[in-house]
């Protein structure tokens, strides 16, 4: 029992980060019908930012907010340079465009920085644990859970209570109608990218505190996790994305603890396989969003 509670808390710690990533991907999908395979590049850019700021002698208290700002800027730039031009294009074009951005940003880092990973120091407190009864709680997991909750509540408030939030939800529901009702598409789409940048930035801070390294492919893993979580949640649904992220985190933790020794390295492969199977049997995702195609 204690063990299970322990694993659930571990899973929430992991899943919180995934939820933030997935939510960013779902927001973009909502307004553009684009699956942003370049979402991980926000993490990559954040990772290099952290590395350079560390090299200049700054600490996490300064780095964390800077990383969020940089992630937002990157998201806006990517929208301006690439995604703006394929709005409304067939799904195939949009998918390949986001992969194109993913590969190009990766190539730029290889060319101008290095193909090798660079290490930077992780904050000391992330390894601290609190012992309560039989539980050993990682301070880091608790911090992630708290930060995720705060960010999600903030996002919820933004979406439910502000004019921007209402426009964004309207656009996610039916983009064309929303436009006809006078919602300015440029502003909503840019806003969606800013929001996804903030979410990715918060996720990046925690991801990087744990990994402590920067490299051209630093964003690949977070991107895959975010996309998979968003897919579990049914892509269009914002609450689905959050649930998807948490589900993914829990499944991973349970898999790691249950897999026989020596095969723990296969966790990612098994998760991928499970998601593919999920798609075979439930193409619309775990949390169904009914999308009726009008004919």
């Amino acid at each position, binding site marked *: 029992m204690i063990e299970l509670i322990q694993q659930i808390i571990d899973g929430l710690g992991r899943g919180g980060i995934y939820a933030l990533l997935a939510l960013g991907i779902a927001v973009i999908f909502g307004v553009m019908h684009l699956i942003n395979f370049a979402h991980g590049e926000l993490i990559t850019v954040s990772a290099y930012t952290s590395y350079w700021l560390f090299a200049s002698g700054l600490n996490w208290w300064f780095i964390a907010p800077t990383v969020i700002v940089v992630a937002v800027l990157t998201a806006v730039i990517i929208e301006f340079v690439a995604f703006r031009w394929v709005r409304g294009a067939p799904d195939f074009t949009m998918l390949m465009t986001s992969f194109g951005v993913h590969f190009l940003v990766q190539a730029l880092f290889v060319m101008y920085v290095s193909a090798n990973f660079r290490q930077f120091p992780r904050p000391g407190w992330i390894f601290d644990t609190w012992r309560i009864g039989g539980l050993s709680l990682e301070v880091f997991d608790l911090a992630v859970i708290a930060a995720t909750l705060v960010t999600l509540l903030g996002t919820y408030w933004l979406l439910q209570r502000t004019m921007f939030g209402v426009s964004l939800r309207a656009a996610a529901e039916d983009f064309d109608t929303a436009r006809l009702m006078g919602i300015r598409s440029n502003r909503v789409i840019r806003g969606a990218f800013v929001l996804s940048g903030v979410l990715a930035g918060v996720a990046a801070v925690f991801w990087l505190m744990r990994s402590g390294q920067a490299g051209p492919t630093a964003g690949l893993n977070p991107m895959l996790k975010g996309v998979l979580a968003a897919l579990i949640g049914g892509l269009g649904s914002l609450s689905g994305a959050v649930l998807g992220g948490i589900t993914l985190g829990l499944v991973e933790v349970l898999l790691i603890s249950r897999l026989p020794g020596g095969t723990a390295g296969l966790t990612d492969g098994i998760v991928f396989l499970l998601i593919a199977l999920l798609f075979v049997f439930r193409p619309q995702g775990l949390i169904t969003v009914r999308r009726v195609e009008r*004919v």
Partner: protein
Amino acid sequence: MQADRVRHAVAPVLGSGLLFLFLVAGSLLYAATGDAAANSLVTQMLINAVVVLGIQIYIGNTGVLSFGHIGFGAIAGYAFAICAISPERKLRQIPNAPFGLAEVDFTPLQSGLIAVTLTVIVAFLIGLALSRSGARSGAVAAVVITLALLFVVHEVARNWIDLTRGGKTGLSFSPLGNATLQGKLPIYLILLGAIGLARLFKETRAGRLAQAAREDDLAARVMGIDPAVQQMIALLLSVVVVSAGSALRVFELGSINPRLFFFDYTLLTLTMLIVGGRNSVVGALTGVLIITVGSELTRNLSEVDIQGMNWLLRDGLTDIFLGGAMLGFMILRPAGLLGDWELDHWSLRRLRRTEPPPVPPPSTDGDQTPTTVLKVTNVTVHFGGYQALADAGLEAASGEIVGLIGPNGAGKTTLLNVITGLVESDNGQTALGGVILTGVSPHVIARSGLARTFQNFRLFSALSVRENIGVVRLVAKHFRRDRPLPPVGALMAQAGLWEQRDRRASELDYGNARRLELARAAAAGPEFLLLDEPTSGMSDSESRAMIDQVRSMAKLIGAGVVVIDHDLNFITGICDRVYVLDQGRVIAVGTPAEIAANPAVQTAYLGTAE
């Protein structure tokens, strides 16, 4: 006509041959003038061409984006290497291989065949998964499943040390790991086969049906096409080519490791495919050429030292070029350089210009075909809490033209969607000539004899007028053999589209697009044509002309008609009987004159007179 048909079949064959000769002659010339490095570059290019053509067969025809083809390549590559490496070398590299694989000894040809067979079996399973997930053009599920394949194969190759020797060293044919392929004949033969297969598949029945589904999955299904079958055929053929190419690649390099068939190669081959034009065989080959030359140039440039240019001419320029090419083409020219153009189109264009207009076919005599009845009863549909249809129904006999009118939201289109299987009803049933069609897939309903058009038309937009009709007729020739199936030319002439016959459907104006949808539905050889607002967006005169068009088209194929429209002049001008729907219920049935006089109908349309 017979001679034309022969020329239509021969042109692609000749075109493929010509393409092959160009490629081989070009590469021989280049290799002859260059050194060993040039020679190896050419060899690699030809092998990449095989792999890219293989991917083209799938992505080009189905529009389903696959990231897994290089994963298939990895399976084939390893299977080939494990079979073909000599037992003596294997005992040194993988002495603990399972199933006694370390001792087996096959010739390269045998190994290639084993590799292809094994990979095709895996592809069949993946194909089942893809069709289960409802893969269609640009489908996300397909991206996930194929990416999963690429990842899982990679992980297995890295971790199953006993079989693959893991990721560090990989397997090699000779101690030094140098090239093992002697002579280029195998490459040429496989390349020729790949070009021919890719080009001819586009013209086969399966290829053309897959292309229709690529353009509009839903329209294809209600025209009787089952995309899952065509996609499976395309997948298996494409995997045959990809695995042959991958075995060649391994043989030529003399070694294999997991990185050889992973993201980098996926990026390279997909970029090659997209740049030239994924829907075209010449396009795919052009892409291979451009990307090979471009990569080589950028690689050389990155080593050049020019003052002030070091910010650009440095290591990694090749990857920038690849990523930039993929992104640039998607933004500026998503169809690639050549779109869907093929070398042999040049000869067909001349043939088509001199084509004689079709002779009007004999109209079928309504009396010859026995009367069939379409009977829809007690249909109820809920969307959430909203009741779209309540106990609605209709009956129509062949030879009859039945109208379906009602205010917006009355449930007219929903009723049509229920009949064609696109919407599931809570209860009620559809029977055509006594055969119950409720709960049957849309494509089976279409094959049983119901063809429809759409309110917002859904044509196969990248296909020409001729192909739009032709592809549906292909299906009808299979499933509607006992029906009068007028030739494509006659249908085009009947719909007034003869002059537009080789234009893309996406280029047609509104009226022509509507008429094309009518002709396409007629090509399905149905018992009943179900038309959803055929005159919406048309001018008065166009809509009057539509009356004759619908009548003569129905007569040509001997079908009954059920038509939804808002234009009351059109409805009264064409219908024998009219059903009036309001709030999901049938509130009146009768001749147009009776309906016009019915007080309930007047209330529904105009509101109560106070």
